[in-house]
């Protein structure tokens, strides 16, 4: 399985929704504490297990997350630690990039999500406790959602209802929002510690998973959110990111500060289905391909990006 070495510490990896072999990687220098950042657009060569870099964009501050546009196949958005977001178009010559700089957040932008059903808007989650809604054609945000009491680490659009999204915050709650409503419509006090990531089940729009510093992943049904549907324990340290599979109803993948990437089936008694310990530092970003069933990618502070098929060893040649 191929490996891509980034000069900076990896923070996030995302598959393109248009091209099966394309990914974007968000990296930050000096572990994201202080330094530059870089966005890589990489491509999997079909001839062999090789990853080629198509283009890379430098930023003044670390890049914490990246999201592909769902409407334009060559456009991606990067979340930068100086509070701005940069929009890149890989079809334009490199000198023309970035095409936009969206600066409204007062603090680091930590999470991005593009609307997979409406395809025209995206959300940004920031350490300034707010979530903002944007479209590519406007330089200013459309809405600001300010209710969390602490950093918002992650946002996720509902895969079925184009106006509903969830936000995970360091105030230990997950909030469900509807862009048609002025405030949050539901508050789930999911964990006793900070919640770092959330994601919706692609096949059951009422199920949402949350990952927390308390090393657990909990699956919630919003219709009965007092008690979790399932609690997934197994990580040794804080769980940094989770993602439900776009192809299989019960499968989700998670990455953690225990340097592993884990696969879970939350409907089964013994939920841990796979564990990959290929990273030698914090595993910080993970993604499952929407186009290719079973294809997954992960990145971490060890400056490596792995892409492999589920069931194979990511470090195999």
């Amino acid at each position, binding site marked *: 399985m191929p490996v891509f070495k980034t000069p900076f510490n990896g923070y996030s990896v995302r598959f393109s*929704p*248009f091209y*099966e072999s394309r990914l974007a990687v968000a990296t930050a*220098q*000096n*572990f*994201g*504490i*202080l330094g*530059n950042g870089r966005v890589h657009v990489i491509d999997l060569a*079909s001839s062999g297990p090789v990853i080629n870099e198509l283009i890379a*964009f*430098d*930023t*003044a501050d670390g890049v914490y997350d990246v999201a592909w546009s769902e*409407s334009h*196949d060559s*456009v991606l958005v990067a979340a*930068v630690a100086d509070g701005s977001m940069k929009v890149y178009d890989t*079809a334009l010559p490199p*000198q*023309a990039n970035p*095409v*936009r*700089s969206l600066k409204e957040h007062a603090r680091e932008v930590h999470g991005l999500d593009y609307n*997979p059903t409406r*395809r025209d808007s995206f959300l940004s989650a920031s350490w300034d406790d707010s979530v903002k809604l944007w479209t590519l054609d406007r330089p200013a945000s459309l809405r600001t959602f300010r*209710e969390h*009491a*602490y950093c918002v680490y992650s946002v996720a659009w509902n*895969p079925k*209802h184009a106006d509903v999204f969830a936000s995970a915050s*360091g*105030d230990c709650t997950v909030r469900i929002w*509807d862009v048609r*409503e*002025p*405030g949050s*419509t*539901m*508050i789930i006090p999911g964990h*006793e*510690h*900070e919640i770092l990531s959330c994601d919706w089940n692609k096949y059951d729009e*009422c199920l949402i998973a949350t990952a927390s510093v308390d090393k657990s992943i909990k699956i919630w049904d919003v219709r009965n959110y*007092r008690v979790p549907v399932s609690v997934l324990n197994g990580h040794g340290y*804080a769980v940094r990111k989770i993602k439900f599979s*776009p192809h*299989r109803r019960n*499968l989700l993948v998670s990455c953690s500060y225990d340097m592993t990437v884990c696969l879970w089936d939350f*409907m*089964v008694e013994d939920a841990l*289905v796979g564990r990959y310990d290929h990273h030698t530092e914090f595993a910080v970003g993970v993604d499952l391909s929407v186009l*290719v*069933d*079973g294809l997954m990618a992960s990145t971490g*502070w060890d400056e490596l990006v792995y892409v492999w*098929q589920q*069931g194979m*060893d990511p470090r195999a040649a």
Partner: protein
Amino acid sequence: MATTQSPSPNSNDDKPQAVSELVQQANQVLQDVRPEATKQSVPASVFVNSEPIREDQVSNAVKFLSHPKVRGSPVIYRRSFLEKKGLTKEEIDEAFQRVPDPSPSSQPASLNQDGQANSLSSIQTQVPIQTSQPLAAAPTGIVSSGTVARRQFQWYHAVSAVGLLAASGCGTALLIKKVIIPKLKLWVRKVVLEEENDYAKKIDAKPSLAEEAATAAKAAAAAASDVAKASQEMLNSKNEERRRFEEFMNLMDAQVQEMKSMSNSIRKLEGQANSSGRAFSDHDDHRASASSTKQSYANGNVDVNVQPGRSSTLPASAEPPHPKSFMEIMEMIQRGEKPSNIREVNDMPPNPNQQLSNPRITPRTKPWEAQNGPRQVLQSQTSAEGLNQNGVDSGLNYLVDDESSTPWWQWKNLRITEIENEDEVKADGSYGVKTNEQPSVQRTWVPPPPPPVAMPEAAEAIRRPKSAPKETAMQEQLADDQSAARPSEVTDELQRITKMSESAGAVEMNGGFLTGNSTVIQEQENSYEGN
């Protein structure tokens, strides 16, 4: 939508029947539309709290909010605490309204339908309350709370404003009567007394002087006692501050000791290869200190503030080990040094009005969106597909060995589907965690019945024609007609697959696969026929 066209030819024949038919067809159309409408309206209710307000939770929250220490904390932290305890937004708003807090207790941005009802009731209750309270205090209090109230109900606002004006008018009138008249009387009495005093002044000169001296002495004594009391209070408060400082110092000492132990253990374990129980730092702390070091570095200060109390911190034993260079960089920044590898990068857009390039590919439907259509058809066949599966998979396996046909990132998927089918047939739940052995990784999790048996085939077939042009082109830009033709190819393939699965024949399936521009399929056919 076609059903609306059909009643027109029938309606001319028999009017009552036609009317009923029209109604039936209109109902059908409505029923078709209604599920969509209800689907769109139902999610709003699914993602909203529908629980009634729990009185016990609200009363607990009121007690919490009434505590003097809580009163001094920012509102956002009070709300966050209650949210973490599991109160809904409506319950929190209700608790805030019940607590007699003059400061604005609700955020202006958070409006809810229930919240609006609550504000309605709150304004209504405030209007009668103002008449019962002492009139002098009422206007100011209600003005402050009135400004906080929802702006949507402006006419309520106007009514309360009129009431306020009337009340203030009455209040001032009463004040005048109560205050000014006694003052007048006092003044009159003073004048009278002065006249009397003038009379008796000469007689009472000395005793009055003595009396005055006595009263002055008394006043001085009273003032001295007040001063003493005030100074005592100052001393008490200082003592309290000292105690707090001592406690704070103790906490700081504890933290310093923890940091020292952390650094000691880091140094100890630096020699080891892999970590098992190294030094720890909390996720909050490292993020908080990372951000604060950023800020403090920007300000030129060196002190690192670990923000306590914002969120609960993990016990020290549960914190992840940070890489060695991470600690080095943290120390560098704490010392005020800037890491040397940082460059000045200008990442501003050269043309902020740059047009985005036109998309070359139409967006693809997501697997969970596309499933509802073909999946239902495919799920109806179970055993027949199971038989077909093995045949097809064995045929497709030849492709696995043929490296040039499919991209490497799709290989594994076939084996997964093969073993999935075996599991379904055998109902075997064995599972191995090893990632080195490929077959054994396939897991306990079995797709829920009905099994997505034909889905992998569909996915493969969908993937086939797309991968073929990719291999030939291998460029970012694809022809528009190719991309436009793909969705139709997909649906054609799916239809063919459903037809093929109905007829149980592996040969037919291979024969029925896509023709024409997919070289992959031709290779498959060749390889199959070669056997």
